[in-house]
Each structure stands twice: as structure tokens, then as C-alpha cells.
């Protein structure tokens, strides 16, 4: 029994295949999904998700998505998603530095929220690159 997972963004489809298990991080906690899970729809926060395919874990950085699980089919559709293998470490380090610099220079509530989000996105990408696959 396998789960069929589909990760979509407005620009393209990121991932579409069969996997054994997936761990998502929602805004309250992390949930693990195995085959024959109950139908569930949830909002996924900015963070990492891990997909296990034949004893090999793959990390995906999600930026605010919506996950829908039913009948062994998972659909994650959201603003942005990147597989860890596709992320360029140098670029992400630079983005993180820029985000941190912006956060310190922030003025006003709205800019604070925006730069906070940017920082969280960049740090998620860094984590995705640095994670040790086991």
C-alpha cells in the first residue's frame, strides 16, 4: 500500500509519485501520514516536510501550503515548494543574510511581518539543505 503524493505550486508541479510515508509540519505540530490515513485537510506552515520513499527520506521546503489527504492520495498545493536537492546552498545563504539584514532595518508593523516571513522562508531553505538524510 502506498500513498500517492502530488506537490503543486502555481508555477509548476513539483512532485508526483508514490511514497511510503510523509511527515508534514502544520502550525500546531508535526503529523505523520501512513497509508490508509483518515481523510484530513490542513494548513501546512512554512517549514520542512519529509517524504519517505523505499527507506530513503527526501526533504521538501514548503512555504505555506494546504494539504489534503484522502483515500491514500495526498495533494499539497501552495505558494511555493522546493525539493532539498534543487536548492542552491550559496544562493540560500545570501538570501538568509539579506533577510536578516532587512529584519534589523525594519520600520513599521507591516514591514516587520514581511521581513519575518522572508527570514522564516530563508531559514527553512537552509535547513532543507543541511538536513542529514537517514
Amino acid at each position, binding site marked *: 500500500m502506498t500513498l500517492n503524493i*502530488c506537490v503543486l505550486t*502555481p*508555477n509548476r508541479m513539483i512532485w508526483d509519485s508514490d511514497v511510503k510515508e510523509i511527515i508534514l509540519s502544520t502550525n500546531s505540530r508535526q503529523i505523520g501520514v501512513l497509508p490508509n490515513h483518515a481523510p484530513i485537510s*490542513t494548513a501546512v506552515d512554512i517549514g520542512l516536510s519529509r517524504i519517505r520513499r523505499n527507506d530513503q527520506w527526501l526533504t521538501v521546503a514548503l512555504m505555506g501550503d494546504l494539504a489534503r489527504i484522502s483515500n491514500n492520495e495526498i*495533494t499539497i*498545493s501552495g505558494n511555493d515548494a522546493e525539493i532539498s536537492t534543487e536548492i542552491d546552498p550559496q544562493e540560500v545563504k545570501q538570501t538568509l543574510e539579506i533577510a536578516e539584514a532587512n529584519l534589523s532595518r525594519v520600520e513599521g508593523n507591516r514591514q516587520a511581518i514581511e521581513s519575518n516571513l522572508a527570514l522564516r522562508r530563508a531559514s527553512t531553505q537552509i535547513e532543507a539543505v543541511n538536513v542529514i538524510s537517514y
Partner: protein
Amino acid sequence: MAMAALRREGRRFLLPTVSSAPTIAARPAISNEESCLFGVRSISTQIVRNRMKSVKNIQKITKAMKMVAASKLRGVQTRTEASRGVWQPFIALLGDSPSIDVKKNVIVTVSSDKGLCGGINSTSVKVSKALFKVYSGPEKEPKYVILGEKGKAQLVRDSKDHIMLSVSELQKNPVNYTQVSVLADDILKNVEFDALRVVYNKFRSIVLFIPTVSTILSPETIEKESEAGGSLGDLDLYEIEGGETKSEVLQNLTEFQFSCVMFNAVLENACSELGARMSAMDSSSRNAGEMLDRLTLAYNRTRQASITTELIEIISGASALEG
């Protein structure tokens, strides 16, 4: 040499008299009295040559426009096909009920900013007007939100009071999701609705564009429908995670659905616009080519006729001298 003199005479009469398009054959004949024999009606070669030059220029321009549209189409087409998958999970989750009967309908018409793209804007406007009629009734008055100059120009004429919001120059920079989501957010904030109907041209192939309507329901409508049962009743089977209430989740869902559907609609319409422009410019170039052929024939006929008349003059003059 005689021909050059004739042409000079013709031009001297031509300049003050001929004002606009040289489509009238009779007038040049009157103004070019010196250049032809009495009783012979002909078009001056100069006029035909001017016309040929302008038609050739038009042909070049339309060919270039077709090439530009074709090259732009390739890029937009890949993005459109990639964006088609994003709104499908929403249909799977919330179902698609286009025939739902609600009080407040808002018709979002997606059209282009530039013209010369065939009939796609007229079709979108026709569909929007038909939807308007369908959803009008006692206590029910649909409203318009228009994207694009061409749709606005056509709808402003008779439905000016019903237009709530109009957006133009959407395609100045290449369309990306962030821009469209900001726009969708704007629309959702300023417009009250029970159901949003997005009207756009779906891109099937370079020659086929199908006017399509996508329906998005407001969270309150979805709640009502899910209690009533039917396809939306399955929504309750899903357990909502995350500690938020169902209405909050539904609100997020519908907002996200709207921005995804808008993104897809704008891309599909852009693709259709480029495809329609390609075929319109192509037929325009072909027409210009045919017109050029006809004008060339007329030019050659005129030229040969004037040579013949000159020869006749010379020969008759010579024989008159002899005899």
C-alpha cells in the same frame, strides 16, 4: 522621355486635387487630362504605385507582429500548462457547482489590453453579458469586475453602473503568482459576493480558444451547501487539523482557490490572446499579399495602356504628316 514628361504633368495635377485614398478611378482621370487622350479613362500609375508601397508595408508589419506573437506564445504556453494543475485539488475537495443559485454574483471578466487579436475579447464580453442576464432577477443584481482595457471599453458602454472594479495593464510585466494573488486579495476585500464567476478564454490550441466560466463560492455559501448535502456534503468527512474553526479554514481555502483560479485564467487568456493575434495577423498578411497581386496587375495594365496610346499618337501623327 515622353513617359517621364507625362508623369510630371500628372503629378502637377495630382498634388492639389487628390486628398485621401486613391480608390476612386474617375477622379484621377479628370485631373490627369494632359496625361491621357480624351475618352480614355485610366488610373494614374503614380497612385497605384503609392498604394502598392503602403500595402507592402502593411504586409511587412503584420508578418512581424505574427512572429512576435508566436515567440511570446511559446513561453506563456509552458507556464499555462504548468499552472493548470493548481486548481484541481480544490475541485476535488470542494466540488464544482456552476449551477448554484445565489443572490450576489460577481462576474470577473478577463480580457486583453491590446487589440488586433481577433474576436476573443468580444466573445468574453458576450459571455459576460449573457451571464449577467441569466443571474439578473428580483433582488438579484450581478456586478462586474473587469481585467483589461478591451473588456472595459466594451462593457462601459451599456453596463457602466454595474462595474465595481476595473484593472488594466496587467500584462506589462510577465504575469507571476504574487502579482495575481495581490490582485485577488484586492478584489476579495472590496467586493461582496456569494459566488464569483471568472470568464476567460481557455487555450486549447493555437487555433482553438474556448470561452470558459469558473465558479468560486464564498465560504458562507459552501457552509450552507455542505449542510444541505450533495457533493459539498463530503467536506465534513474531512477532519480539519490545526485547531482552527471550520469557517476560518474555509475562508483560507476559498481565498487560495480564487487566487489559483485567477492565475490560471489570466495565463490562459494571455495564451489565447497571443494565438488569436497570430492567426489574425497571418490572415491579414495573406490579404495584403492578394491585394498586392491585384494592384500589380492594375499597374501593369495602366502602364501598357499608356505606352500603347503614346505609340498610337506617334504613328497617327507620322502618317498624317506623310499623307
